[in-house]
């Protein structure tokens, strides 16, 4: 049954519409975990999450429980979180320090940080003459097939072959360059807190929403209006610039539907996408000026202008990462099931930047990305409602027809046309990549 339908998976995706089962069918979910998430490069975490030898963080790649650990040689390893003896999960905590070695809580098998076997209790007396002997690779904790890091951002692929990380990221690599370049020190470090929020919908609804330039003024109107009202009150009393954090919210109301068309999406192979346009945040307040000075000192005027001129709202690294580089935050998407998705939300500090600049993006992290979010509450409500509707027999298709046929195609990229920023080109591009993975 599955094979019959999967042989036909190309029929689930048309250039401007997609069958609803793509979001709701459990067997399709299993297959996409296998062919997409457990194949492509998936974001594991940032190197600064695990500064000391033995520091580890657990994470999920597709359906696989993994861990990212710092070795004594400073190298970052990504391993299956599983003891090769009886399959016990090696680390039960979400993060911590494993000490000199991993030690299984069940029978005390021990492993080096790179996953290779260190010791089995009573190895000589217990295993003489058996198939178990030191040096056989099946006695190691299994490593991810490939691990690569770019500017501190660690990715793993569970497939031994395929494009390199840089080839895979292509132009979406700007997410990490833009974030790090904005630091006078050229690097970022993680703010040690992860907000985790579960939504009751398929993971693809999240990815599609992140670069959906049409939804903010509808979905987030209530917060936009509320913030705009308070912003006006503050402006009456305060000095210019003080209400900046409210501006991030009020933009959802003051930037009306037609204006969001001024934004643009640029879509790349593998389903990646950039949403350009930034909520007018290049202010001229004293904090920004102090930061600009440090940046000019670090990079020179010309390079500085290039860096702060990068015009990005969101970068989407398909299938599992949404980066807001100008605000130094990202959301990693971990599918838990066909109708349940976890997002892990991190904020980064620009090395060498003034405290005020950190606080400005922190305000956004807290207001938009915390579990008491003033924004995503309404997104999550929509995601749930979408998933419910798509589970019904009320219709078979999801439409991505907006501005279809008007996009500008160049080799290696598809852009929405001028003043068509709300084009559903990103969704079409994601589903194109999805179909390619699924039929490969």
């Amino acid at each position, binding site marked *: 049954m599955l094979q019959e339908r999967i042989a036909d998976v190309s029929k689930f995706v048309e250039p401007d519409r997609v069958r609803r089962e793509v979001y709701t069918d459990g067997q399709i979910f299993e297959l996409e975990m296998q062919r997409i998430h457990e194949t492509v490069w998936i974001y594991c975490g940032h190197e600064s999450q695990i500064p000391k030898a033995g520091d580890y963080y657990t994470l999920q790649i597709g359906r696989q429980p993994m861990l990212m650990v710092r070795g004594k040689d400073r190298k970052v390893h990504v391993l299956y979180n599983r003891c090769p003896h009886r399959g016990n999960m090696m680390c039960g905590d979400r993060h911590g320090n494993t000490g000199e070695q991993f030690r299984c809580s069940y029978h005390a098998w021990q492993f080096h940080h790179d996953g290779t076997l260190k010791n089995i209790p009573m190895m000589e007396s217990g295993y003489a003459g058996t198939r178990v002997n030191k040096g056989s690779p099946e006695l190691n904790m299994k490593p991810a097939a490939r691990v690569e890091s770019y500017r501190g951002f660690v990715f793993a692929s569970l497939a031994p072959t395929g494009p390199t990380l840089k080839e895979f990221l292509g132009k979406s690599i700007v997410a990490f360059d833009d974030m790090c370049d904005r630091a006078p020190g050229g690097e970022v470090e993680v*703010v040690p*807190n992860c*907000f*985790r*929020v*579960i*939504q*009751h919908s398929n993971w693809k609804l999240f990815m599609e929403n992140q670069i959906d330039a049409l939804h903010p003024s509808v*979905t987030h*109107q*209530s*917060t936009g*209006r*509320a*913030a705009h*009202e*308070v912003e006006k*009150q*503050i402006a009456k009393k305060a000095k210019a610039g003080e209400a900046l954090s*409210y501006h991030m*919210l009020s933009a959802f109301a003051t930037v009306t539907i037609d204006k969001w068309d001024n934004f643009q999406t640029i879509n790349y192979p593998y389903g990646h996408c950039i949403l350009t346009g930034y909520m007018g945040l290049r202010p001229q307040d004293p904090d920004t000026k102090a930061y600009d000075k440090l940046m000019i000192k670090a990079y020179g005027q010309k390079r500085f202008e290039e860096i702060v001129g990068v015009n990005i709202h969101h970068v989407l690294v398909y299938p599992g990462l949404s980066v807001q580089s100008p605000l130094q935050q990202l959301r990693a998407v971990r599918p838990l099931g066909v109708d349940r998705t*976890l997002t892990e939300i991190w*904020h980064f500090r620009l090395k060498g930047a003034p*405290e005020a600049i*950190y*606080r400005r993006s*922190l305000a956004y*992290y*807290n*207001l938009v990305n*915390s*579990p*008491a*979010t*003033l924004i*995503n*509450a*309404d997104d*999550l*409500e*929509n995601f749930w409602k979408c998933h419910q509707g798509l589970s019904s027999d009320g219709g078979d298709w999801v439409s991505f027809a907006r501005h279809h046929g008007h996009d500008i195609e160049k080799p290696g990229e598809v852009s929405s046309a001028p003043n068509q920023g709300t084009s559903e080109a990103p969704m079409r591009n994601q589903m194109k990549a999805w179909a390619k993975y699924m039929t490969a």
Partner: protein
Amino acid sequence: MKAQQDVEQFLYRQSELLDTKRWQEWIDLFTPDGIYWMPPAPEYKTWDGQPAIFAEDKNLMTVRMNRVLHPDAWSQRPLWETNHVVSNVRIQSSGKNLVVRSRFHMMELRRDDVRHFAGSYEHHLTKTKKGYRIKLQRVDMTNAQAAYDYVLQVWV
């Protein structure tokens, strides 16, 4: 004993205002520079300049109130009710400015789903002519570090 009873009545009233959705009256319980703070973990020492689930002054409280009162706050459209119980009230200091610790349990109904949140409050209260006012309310959720299944829309 008088202070104990006054403080308890104050805390009960605060939770009653939440459960009856009298948002403006709830906000009015804070001093003009009052802060409502929910840290992401118990080890946090200050609300300022740190990741926070909530770190709201009265302006932000007003944004949140206006949002939930807006007719297009979609996530607020479904049936949504809460029920707080506050207990274990202990006054930690005496005088005009009090530090009060207590425990709470909140049951939330949203559509057909029930969620439970529990934890501790730390109220920094100051006595005014109108009675106690909150300079700082710290809310430590026992489940603050667990993944949030859906989000928190209003103060706990």
